[in-house]
């Protein structure tokens, strides 16, 4: 049973079939076998959040998930956030506008976490944003730009819904 087994999963809309050992993590499989280099491995132990992806509709720290557990699953990574024509996701644009990254290593995880937050709670207040992002560690920015970016994306999404004609 320690022998490699074949799994199939969809990554950012593309189907992949690969052979993995039980101990291979989803993070490793995504990066090394599916070409999703946007998935970052920081601590490799589930603390830093850099490896956060969307797994079957909910965020997961891909370094804490075995690849074999993702057999048959649908995974979205940061590389699937932008539109097919390259137009940035509003969160990505907000991160640019608010200078919410320096080295960029935590950014993929931050974006995936923020995307889930705003999807579940479009009206998330500052406390909710801080709480949701508290598991994503950043060594560079001091977090303020990241918080501003998430607030901006939240506010711009709100403004965009149903108020355009009133202006």
């Amino acid at each position, binding site marked *: *049973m*320690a022998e490699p*087994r074949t799994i199939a999963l969809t990554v950012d809309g593309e189907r992949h079939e690969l052979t993995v*050992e*039980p*101990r*291979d*993590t989803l993070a*490793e499989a995504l990066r090394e076998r599916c070409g999703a280099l946007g998935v970052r491995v920081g601590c*490799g*132990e*589930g*603390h830093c*959040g850099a490896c*956060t992806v969307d*797994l079957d509709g*909910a*965020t*997961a*720290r891909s*370094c*804490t*998930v*075995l690849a*074999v*557990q993702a057999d048959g699953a649908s995974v979205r990574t940061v590389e699937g956030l932008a539109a097919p024509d390259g137009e940035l996701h509003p969160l990505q644009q907000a991160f640019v506008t608010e200078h919410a990254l320096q080295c960029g290593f935590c950014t993929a995880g931050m974006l995936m*976490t923020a995307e*889930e*937050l705003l999807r579940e709670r479009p009206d998330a207040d500052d406390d909710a944003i801080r*709480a*949701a992002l*508290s*598991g*994503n560690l950043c060594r560079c920015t001091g977090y303020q730009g990241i918080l501003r970016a998430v607030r901006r994306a939240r506010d711009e999404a709100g403004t965009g819904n149903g108020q355009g004609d009133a202006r």
Partner: protein
Amino acid sequence: MTLPPFDYARPASLDEATDLLARGDARVLAGGQSLVPALAARLPGGPRPGLLVDLYAIPGLDAIEPLPDGGVRIGAMARQRTVELSPLIAQRAPLLAEATAWIGHPSTRNRGTVVGSLAYAEPAAEIPSVAVALDAVAEIAGPGGARRTATAAELLGASPATPTTPAAPQAPANPPVRRGTALTPGELIVALTIPARSAAERTAWVEHAPRRYDLPLVGVAAVVRADGTARLVFAGVGPAPVTLQLRSSAPLRGGRTTGVPAVAELRSFEGHMDPESTGVPAPDPLRARIAGTLARRALRQALRGPARTEAAHG
């Protein structure tokens, strides 16, 4: 770092799972949010399973269901996030919903399970102490179709606090060592049942973590009953939850307590509420002090909050 090698199995039934677990070096894989990081860290003395038994494919294990007596049954694969947001849990066991919201981060709660947190028995974790506070009972499956139940308190080895004198000065101690549960090889927890709670009961969970939202240093569950008794269960002051029974000098006023309860009401809880010591044995004076502060805070929050039947879900 790279995980150590192990076998992996994904059984389709409980009996298949327990047969696999009877292999001495096998461990259950549920959410994996405690186990996989522990494997990655490769700490000395940490887990080195030869086989991981993944419960994912066993049907029905993720159910959260109401019981006819007013209790609630939480399956082994029910995710912490689902429990946190469940209207049924908010209504029948609000203390569990409140405490679960403090576990880890949204992405870990999406994967981690409530039952798994109990079985892992991390000394400072929320679920083990809340399970003891709510008189939870575990349904256990064993090899050959064996089935039994055990209270969370029995499984964890929860113990009552004994009166102590104020802690003598000593160097800060290492955290309590995790010692696991009383499950025997081949056994796994199938579900956790929380019996019906009194409608007049008031509860609260408070914890202190040096880094907010991280694993707590000390946590306290408070359950206050209408007859003026209260139970406190402490996480992080020993390998297993530590319980403290308190008695008020008078029954609580009926109805909702508005504002901060009178100091006299807190002081009316006799027992180990001496300002210098909670009477809760702790590895060091810091944890003892924090435990005392959190105990008062938990009681105040429970008294201030709505009775269980009024608790809103969010």
